Structure formats: structure tokens, C-alpha cells
């Protein structure tokens, strides 16, 4: 019995192989004759790879992983967001290539000086893909779904991002949104329980995209497979672990957009294999380029290399509770002994910018007045001598075991720094362990010197400085165990300050203190590489990690 099944399968495969071989010769002639269920589907992935009808602009996007769900409220991964933010839109959006807030589904908005009331004036004449109208009721409907645990459409697992960004759900003590009020058909008002500085920035995040209430009610938990929004593209099909296809929304409110007729997101897990696919013309754009491959892309005139503006930081830090790192002169000395330009050149293949502050330059409140310490071993030695270590000392240097976007190779980078530290008398032993243990032990403060980094997610300075260096986060994100009362007070004040200019000043002050005290030595802001065919136009990499594709065009 078993044998027969096997031989049947084998002959099936043979037939398939023959059919496919026939295909390559004459496109249509060899339609597979036997009607095995899997076969038409097997052929499907090839179709999008063709350029399609003449004149139709199809962009094939190669990426490392598949989407988890297409219901943006339920997800927190970039590969899902990459697709959903082209199908569904948020009230406000981020401008091309920066974290600046620009109108989205809301044309304009008024903020009450108290910071407790936001009134949004919605865009008129916008329709969901299912033909229903986008209006204030739809906005309220979506927010009710997210914030009210008793709402029938509330996910049983909750909405992680909503919880994180808006302080829990309705009824929780720290919940930010008191009420969403429909003022008239195109005006919606948000009443807040407490003022929240990054409120607008949060509303622009992909999880808070407005979905069609009709589709939500009809699809219920299946919405994640059949997303319906107002976006420039409509959902066509999703073959798990292979591709997702979206196509132009002919009724999009901006008549000039989108430029493309179709976008196919194709999964190719291996970074090098994805580059090969790009080189052979199978895909048009890819993200997740290995830094080492940047040269190859640059050298190929058919391709273009783009870099994503950095929203991360890779740094060297200490446990400032341990001797000798409790002395700021020692930390300053080490900062002088880190050759940032050389490290960036060597370990990021130049796809990074040497870092001065702990937050990347595109964020609000970045202090560009601070001039970085130069690489100067003499000064380092001098500072060490002042601190009472003229002959240096011995210590352990923890390096992470896995490649991270912000530090592509921790071990080797540590080795390179080790050479320079040796020159100022600091003998380091490089220590490593598996990633989970590394994170856990550094959280407990078992390290002496260590390498780590951070990827920001909502583009707010609080998301960097407060998380990494506030005394409230010792035992959490503050692995440096840095406690500075002045910094703490400034950060708390900045959290509730609504005026961006004043807020910016507070963060600038904090960065000055941090630069002097050196709880961390910022090394680099990595700029992840994106490669595309030269014919792809208007693709502007965005710091948040994914792009709105409506303006992208092809020649």
C-alpha cells in the first residue's frame, strides 16, 4: 500500500517536472494535465515574477520573513506592518524619510493648550475598499474596539501596541484616552485622561490604522486574512511563506497615487539569496542587505544602494556600580580610546554614522551642538592616571554573541577595541554567552564592560533615553545601572511637556549631562542597506523600518 502511494507520488512529481520543463519552452502549451490540488498553486508564484502585461507596473519586494497577520492592531512586527500600512491608513502619517508628523486621514487637527483634547478634521470623500464611507464613526468604532476589553471585536490576546503606547485599556489607571467623541461626520475629538507628549506620533504608528467597520464586523477574527482599509492598495492574495499581492486602489482619495499597479511581497529568507534574486531580476527591491554586500551593489550599475536613516544606537557601556567604572574619568578615558570612524568603516562597511549621543539625529531634541571626543590615546592615559590607574587595570569585556542591526558583529568589534584598550593599559578578557543569558545577566548587572544597542520604535527621544538610562529602569532597560537624579527629573518633565520646543530643550540638556558623565559610549547609528533596481524611483527609506509605497514608481 505504502509503496503504491510512494510510486504514485513519484510519478506525480515526474509529471510535474515534465510539465514545468515544457513550460519554460512554450509558455502556455504545457498546462499540467493531471489535476493534483497543489499544482496550480505551485505555479502561482512564478506568475507575479513576470513583468505582467505591458505597461503594468509591478514591483516585487524581496524580504526576509512572512507577515504574521494583516490586522495591524494585533501585530508588532515589521514584516506585517510593511504590508498593512499600504492597505490601511492612520489619522496622521510620517513624512518621507523622517519622523515628522504630516496629515493622513485627518487633514488637520487642533490641540487644546492643556494637552488633554485633540480635535481631528477628517478628510472628506474617502471610501474603504468595500465601498463604505470613512467618517468619524469609523474612527470611533476602531478606537472602541482597541480600548474596550468588553468590545465584542476586542482581541482575546489584547492589542499589544495599544496597551504599550496608550497606558493599557479603558479603566486602567494609566490609560491615556478617556473618550473618542464624534462631533460631526468629519470631526472627531479625543479627550485624554493625562497629557502625553508623543500622542500624535503614536497615532501615526501602523497598529492604529483605521479599518472598515463593516469588514471588521463581517470578518471578525478572519480580518487578519482579509484586510479592508482606505489605503492606496487593495489586498489581493496571500500565500503563506511565499508572497502577498496587493494592487492599485482605483478609488484612492489622492487621484495621482499610487504610481504602481501592483506590489508583490516575496519571502526569500536568506540575505545572500535575496541579493542573488535581485541581481537576476527576479525581484525589484530588497531590504536586509548584508553590510559586506554593499560594495557589490554599488559596483553594479543596474542596481542602486539606499540606506535607511538610522533609528538605532550601538554602544559600549559599563556597570557603573562596579569599580573602576564608578569613576567618570575612567569612563571618559575609555570613550577617548574608542576609534569610532575606524569601527564604522570596518564593521558596518560604512553603512553607519559614528554616534555622539545615545539617540539618533533624526529625533526631536537631538543635541547637535555637542562635539564628540576624538580618538586620543594620550588623553585617555592621562585621564586614567588622574583617576588613579596610571598602569591601567584588568577587566572583563562582554560582547554579544549574535549579529544585531546596530552592531553587526559584537565579538569582532570587541576584539578590535581590545587592541586599543590594551594600548592605554586596560587588559580586557572578552566574554560571551548565548543571547538570552547575555540579556538576562546584563539586566542583573553582572557585567563589567559590555556592548549592546537599541532599536527605537516610535521615533520619540523618550523611547531611547528614558528606557536606557533612567534610574526607574535599573533592572530593566537601564543595564548600565546609571542613576542620576537631575537626569531623572528632566526626563520626567519631558514626558509630560506638550510643547515640542520646550521638550526639545529638556532632552538637549540631558544629552549634555550624559556626554560629560559617559554612562554609555555611543558607537554608531547603523544605516541598514536597501538595494533596488536602478529603475525603481521615489523609494525613500524610512527610519521606522517600513515604507509607504504609494509614491514609488518604476521606469
Amino acid at each position, binding site marked *: 500500500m505504502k509503496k503504491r502511494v510512494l510510486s504514485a507520488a513519484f510519478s506525480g512529481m515526474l509529471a510535474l517536472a515534465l510539465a514545468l520543463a515544457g513550460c519554460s519552452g512554450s509558455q502556455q502549451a504545457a498546462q499540467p494535465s493531471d489535476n493534483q490540488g497543489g499544482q496550480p498553486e505551485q505555479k502561482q508564484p512564478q506568475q507575479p515574477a513576470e513583468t505582467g502585461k505591458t505597461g503594468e507596473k509591478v514591483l516585487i519586494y524581496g524580504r526576509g520573513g512572512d507577515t504574521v497577520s494583516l490586522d495591524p492592531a494585533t501585530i508588532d512586527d515589521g514584516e506585517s506592518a510593511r504590508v498593512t500600512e499600504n492597505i490601511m491608513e492612520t489619522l496622521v502619517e510620517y513624512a518621507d524619510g523622517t519622523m515628522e508628523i504630516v496629515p493622513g486621514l485627518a487633514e488637520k487637527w487642533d490641540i487644546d493648550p492643556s494637552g488633554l483634547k485633540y480635535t481631528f478634521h477628517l478628510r472628506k470623500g474617502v471610501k474603504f475598499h468595500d465601498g463604505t464611507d470613512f467618517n468619524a464613526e469609523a474612527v470611533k468604532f476602531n478606537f472602541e474596539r482597541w480600548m474596550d476589553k468588553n468590545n465584542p471585536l476586542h482581541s482575546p490576546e489584547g492589542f499589544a501596541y495599544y496597551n504599550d503606547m496608550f497606558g493599557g485599556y479603558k479603566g486602567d489607571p494609566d490609560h491615556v484616552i478617556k473618550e473618542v467623541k464624534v462631533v460631526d461626520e468629519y470631526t472627531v475629538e479625543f479627550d485624554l485622561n493625562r497629557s502625553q507628549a508623543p500622542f500624535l506620533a503614536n497615532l501615526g504608528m501602523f497598529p492604529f490604522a483605521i479599518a472598515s467597520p463593516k469588514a471588521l464586523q463581517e470578518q471578525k477574527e478572519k480580518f487578519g486574512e482579509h484586510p479592508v482599509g482606505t489605503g492606496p492598495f487593495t489586498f489581493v492574495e496571500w500565500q503563506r511563506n511565499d508572497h502577498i499581492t496587493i494592487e492599485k486602489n482605483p478609488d484612492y482619495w489622492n487621484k495621482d497615487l499610487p504610481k504602481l499597479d501592483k506590489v508583490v511581497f516575496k519571502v526569500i529568507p536568506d540575505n545572500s539569496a535575496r541579493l542573488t534574486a535581485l541581481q537576476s531580476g527576479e525581484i525589484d527591491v530588497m531590504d536586509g542587505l548584508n553590510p559586506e554586500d554593499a560594495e557589490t551593489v554599488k559596483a553594479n550599475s543596474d542596481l542602486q544602494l539606499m540606506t535607511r536613516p538610522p533609528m538605532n544606537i550601538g554602544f559600549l557601556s559599563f556597570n557603573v556600580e562596579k569599580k573602576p567604572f564608578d569613576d567618570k574619568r575612567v569612563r571618559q578615558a575609555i570613550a577617548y580610546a574608542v576609534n569610532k570612524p575606524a569601527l564604522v*568603516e*570596518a564593521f558596518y562597511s560604512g553603512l553607519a554614522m559614528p554616534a555622539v549621543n545615545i539617540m539618533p539625529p533624526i529625533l526631536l531634541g537631538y543635541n547637535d551642538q555637542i562635539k564628540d571626543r576624538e580618538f586620543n590615546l594620550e588623553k585617555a592615559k592621562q585621564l586614567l592616571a588622574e583617576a588613579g590607574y596610571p598602569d591601567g587595570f584588568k577587566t572583563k569585556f562582554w560582547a554579544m554573541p549574535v549579529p544585531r542591526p546596530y552592531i553587526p558583529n559584537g565579538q569582532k568589534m570587541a*576584539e578590535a577595541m*581590545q587592541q586599543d584598550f590594551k594600548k592605554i593599559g586596560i587588559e580586557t578578557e572578552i566574554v560571551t554567552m548565548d543571547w538570552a543569558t547575555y540579556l538576562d545577566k546584563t539586566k542583573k548587572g553582572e557585567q563589567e564592560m559590555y556592548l549592546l544597542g537599541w532599536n527605537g520604535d516610535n521615533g520619540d527621544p523618550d523611547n531611547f533615553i528614558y528606557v536606557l538610562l533612567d534610574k526607574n529602569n535599573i533592572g530593566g532597560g537601564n543595564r548600565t545601572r546609571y542613576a542620576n537624579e537631575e537626569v531623572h527629573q528632566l526626563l520626567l518633565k519631558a514626558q509630560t511637556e506638550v510643547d515640542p520646543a520646550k521638550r526639545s530643550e529638556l532632552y538637549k540638556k540631558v544629552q549634555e549631562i550624559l556626554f560629560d558623565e559617559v554612562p554609555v559610549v555611543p558607537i554608531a547609528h547603523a544605516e541598514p542597506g536597501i538595494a533596488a533596481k536602478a529603475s525603481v524611483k521615489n523609494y525613500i527609506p524610512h527610519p521606522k523600518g517600513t515604507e509607504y509605497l504609494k509614491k514609488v514608481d518604476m521606469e
Partner: protein
Amino acid sequence: MAEVETTTVPLNRAAEEVSSPWRDAWRTLRKNRMAMLGLGIIVFFVAVALLAPVIARYPYDEGELLNRNKPPSAEHWFGTDYNGRDMFSRIVYGARISLWVGTSSVIGSIVVGSLLGLLAGFYGRWIDMLISRIFDIMLAFPSILLAIAIVAILGPSLRNALLAIAIINVPTFGRLIRSRVMSLKEEEFVMAAKALGMTDARIIFHHLLPNSLAPIIVTGTLCVATAIIEAAALGFLGLGAQPPEPEWGKMLSDAKEYIQKAPWTMIFPGISIMLTVLGFNLVGDGLRDAIDPRMKN
């Protein structure tokens, strides 16, 4: 007289053979070209290791980061690695590490393994039972996995890698000696020694051990080769030598992401490992032919 002469000559020759089996073995070995080639390689690498500070033109742990992954040149004969360190100096110092790990770990296994083997073989009964079962258990694991497990417990370092390699090779020698002792025990000279009232220790160390030396030396030499490979494997997995120590296996693994851009960072450590291992294997084979009486025609 003629009769006397014919008897004395073979007697003399026999006496000669008994008195200097080592010289005899050396004579056989010297005629074995491959073995001599192997010996040449070993001597070469030992010389390199001993003279490392003289030969190396740069320190092995310092380099210019901006001078990284440069191809071989007059300045850097073997090029530079990803940290801009001179590959030639690293290879030269690496010889010290590999030879040291290879020989010392094998000597360690020989000492422990022989002792256990002698005890097991000589006393038999429950001692044999216990020791042999331990050997069985150890041999039930693929040796490199066992080494990885040991290093994982002790923590990754060159010393612990050496220890792990020594441990995994113990049963090889233990079994060898045990079977040798079991057969020697039945020999008449051992019986005689027992009858004369010699102590166990004296029998073990004066009769059994010297008579087991030949197979130990042969297996030991071959084992040095595998030990070097195992050390390189552990280094490759990041479980052996820690940076900046210039261990060949570690150098290989560090170089693997630059294999297209800077192949020399991989080629030279690879060749070095291959040559030393080849050297020990050739000598080991030659020794077996020379020493093992069963191989003699």
C-alpha cells in the same frame, strides 16, 4: 667448532635485537620516506613554534583596523586579517598553541588512560567492570560532542578545551592498555615475577607498562593529529581559544565571513592545520610499521 659458530651467530644477533628494539625501529622508520617527510613537517613546525618571537615580524594581537583584510604583500607575507593584524605572525604563534594543545592533551590522556587501563587489566573483577563501563559510556558519545559538552560545562577557554580533548581521548588509551595487559598478564615472565613475590606496583610499572609502550607511542602520535583537529574544531565553534589568541581553528571561523573578500585569512590557517595533522599522521603510520611486531614480515 663449526657447530659452535653457527649457534653463536644467531644467538648474538638475537641478543642484539632484544637489547635495542628502539634502534631497530628507528632504522625501519628511516627507510620509510613518507614517515620521514612527516617528521620533517613536525620538526619544521616545532622549530617555528619555538622561534616564534624571532620569526614573527609583528605582534600577533595588534593591528591597524583601517589596514584590514589586505592581501599578502612584502610587508605582510600572509596578508592581514579583519582587525588588520599580520596573518603571518598569527600563524607562527598559532603553531605554539596547536602543538601545545595537541601534545599536552595527548600526554594527559596517556597518563590517565594508561593508569586506568593498567588497573583494569591487571586487577580485573569489579575494578575492570567499573572502569570499562565508564569507557563504554564515554565512547558511546561522538567524541567531539562530548568535548563540546565538557567545554560548555567548564566554560570556553583554551585550557578547558585542552582538558576536554584530554578527557575524550582517555578511553582510547585505557582500552588499548587494558587489552595489552590482559594478554601480558598470562605471559610466563609475569607469572614468574608473581611467583618471585614481586609487589603489584613493581609488576605493573616494571613489566607491564614498558611492554605496552610500543602501541601507546603509535596511537599517541596518531592521536596528536586528531587532538589538533579537535582543538581547531572547538576553536572554530568559539569554544576553544578566546580572542585575541591566534588559534588556527578560531582564525578559520573568524575568516569565514570574509572568504570571498579576503580568502588568505582562511587559506593559511587551513593549510597550517592540514600540514601539521598530515605530519603527525605520516609519522604515526611509519611508527606503527616500525614498532608493531605484528606488522613485521
